[in-house]
């Protein structure tokens, strides 16, 4: 029985891990749900098996351990709340970007391209194949000092989000 439960927990962990490393938030949410199910099964295994722990229900030595069940219940409630919050976040992301993909940090991308820290990239021609991924950036306010209103983080995001990798057809 324990081997079966352990195998179930392992399977849930495996599928959960696979889903968590996806880029879509909806898949990540399902993955986290599966991971916490796996953990709950681990909790159930960790206690002693026996009769229901109610006074008058046989000798106390034969009772099942009630503590892991209580902890699993608490964990279920907490993961329920977190999942609800994540779903709301995914919905909000859908409204804002028509997608629930976890995007890269804009500043990280700029730093990775070597341009952000010094605020301009004069040697942009050296990294031709890199910048072809982000054609919009060539004309971004970072470079040519066009009006700063477009240079807000939201503005940068618009540029990058339109050209981000792995984006499916709308």
């Amino acid at each position, binding site marked *: 029985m324990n081997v079966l439960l352990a195998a179930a927990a392992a399977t849930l962990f495996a599928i959960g891990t696979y889903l*968590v490393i996806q880029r879509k*938030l909806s898949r*990540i949410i399902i993955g*986290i749900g599966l*991971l*916490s199910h*796996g*953990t709950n099964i*681990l*909790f159930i*295994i*960790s*206690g002693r098996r026996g009769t229901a722990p109610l006074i008058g229900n046989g000798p106390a030595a034969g009772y099942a351990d009630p*503590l*892991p069940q209580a*902890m699993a219940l*608490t*964990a279920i409630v*907490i*993961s329920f*709340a*977190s999942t609800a*919050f*994540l779903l709301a*976040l995914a919905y*909000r*992301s859908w409204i*804002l*970007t028509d997608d629930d993909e*976890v*995007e890269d*940090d*804009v*500043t*990280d991308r700029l*730093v990775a391209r070597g341009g*952000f*820290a*010094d*605020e301009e990239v004069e040697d942009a021609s050296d990294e031709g194949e890199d910048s072809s991924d982000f054609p919009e950036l060539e004309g971004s306010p970072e470079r040519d*000092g066009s*009006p*700063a*209103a477009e*240079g*807000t*983080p*939201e503005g940068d*995001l618009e540029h990058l989000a339109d050209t981000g990798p792995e984006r499916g057809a709308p």
Partner: protein
Amino acid sequence: MNAALLTLPILLPLLGAGASMIAGRSKAAQRVIALAVLTVTTALSIALLVLVDRDGTITSQAGGWPAPIGITLVADRLSAIMLLLAEVMLLAVLLYAIGQPGAERNHVGFQSVYLILAAGVAASFLTGDLFNLFVAFEMMLTASYVLITLGARRDQVRAGMTYVVISLLASVLLLTALALIYSATGTVNLADLSLRMEGLSPGLRTAFALFLLLIFGIKAGLFPLFFWLPDSYPTAPSAVTAVFAGLLTKVGVYAIIRTQTLLFPVDIRPQQLILWIAGATMLVGVLGAIAQADVKRILSFHIVSQIGYMVMGLGLFTVAGIAGAIFYIIHHIVVKTTLFLTGGLIEHVGGSGRLSRVGNMVKTVPFVAVLFLVPALSLAGIPPLSGFVAKFALVSAGTESERYWLVAVSILVSLFTLFSMMKIWSGVFWSPAEEAPDVEPHRVGRLGGPVLMIAPTAALAALSVVIALFAGPLYGLSERAAVDLLDPARYVSAVMGP
């Protein structure tokens, strides 16, 4: 008396959160409730620290059930110090948030969520139970999820996703660790665990030590698990980032210190690994900071770098090392919160946090420049400020333990810290702005901002100077806390009875 001191810092904010929700859309009532609750809990935590320092560890068993069965609340010197610092920061940042246009004014739930965060932080410091530590973490983190995405702007949602998913993964791992530990030992009470761990095989105990280090390392932002931190912190409103920077990662550090010293004997602790991680965290964090060009992002990378110093003190596992780490935490929480509040002032005054888009502030708002310079020099460890004392304590502890390479790394990192602080200084305060700011700058008076934003920042900056002035007594307190930590038998006998 003990029960009241230990439970009220958790219960009052929760009740306050409820009351604040009932108060609904009346901002004034919500502010009064939140300020009153945090003032009372601050007073309580002062009383708690005085009491604990005089009489030693105090405990409270919920419902009168004796130790491994009931829910245990424990305050030893370390938790009392952490609790007091947390309450002072929460109170100061709440004042700042009230003063800042737009931080809490536009959001109905801000005060309630903020109080739940306060309850979660207090519960993590006071709990004597690994499972309740998980619950306290969840309370704190759930509140932080809401706070970080409160504006629901596009960048906040993006940063919030990373933050929430990483935190949830860490929580699932913590639960897994709890299930494994429970099945191996049959308890989750920390004191009881400390006793029963001795019955396990060394391999299993090492595995648990590493597992807990990994989980709390994610929460604390240790190398190589820190990447979520500079990614998500800068997008939140300044007041929220300040309280996150001051408190959340430090709760992770507290959990690392607590579990590694209490649960695992000397030969099981992954000491060498912790020291390497400490060095790498310091170095990578500060190098990340140098590459940035935005005030809040520079400061966020510095959080990571500073966590390395605290873990370095822990990794030495000597009284001097841990006392240095505790003193460093005291210094760091105050200074880091002040710096983020000043960062908020810079954005308020200049309309941007990008170094190239603000400038010349030493002329326009000289007082803000002072408020930045004091904690910035302190962070870099310039004498006679508090950072110098903290770093000196760690360096001398490191030399005592003959870990010269780590001492060298820590001194090198101080130099880099000074460099990036001066980068902010020259970019924001000395040189003229090269580009126009993101938004229209606020009109400022002679002070440089609304009084309610300036006053808490100035108070915290003054507090960091006070820490340096009273470094002797504070280091003495840290040393007594370290002695407690290195002798787990005291904690165990306080909880389980003699």
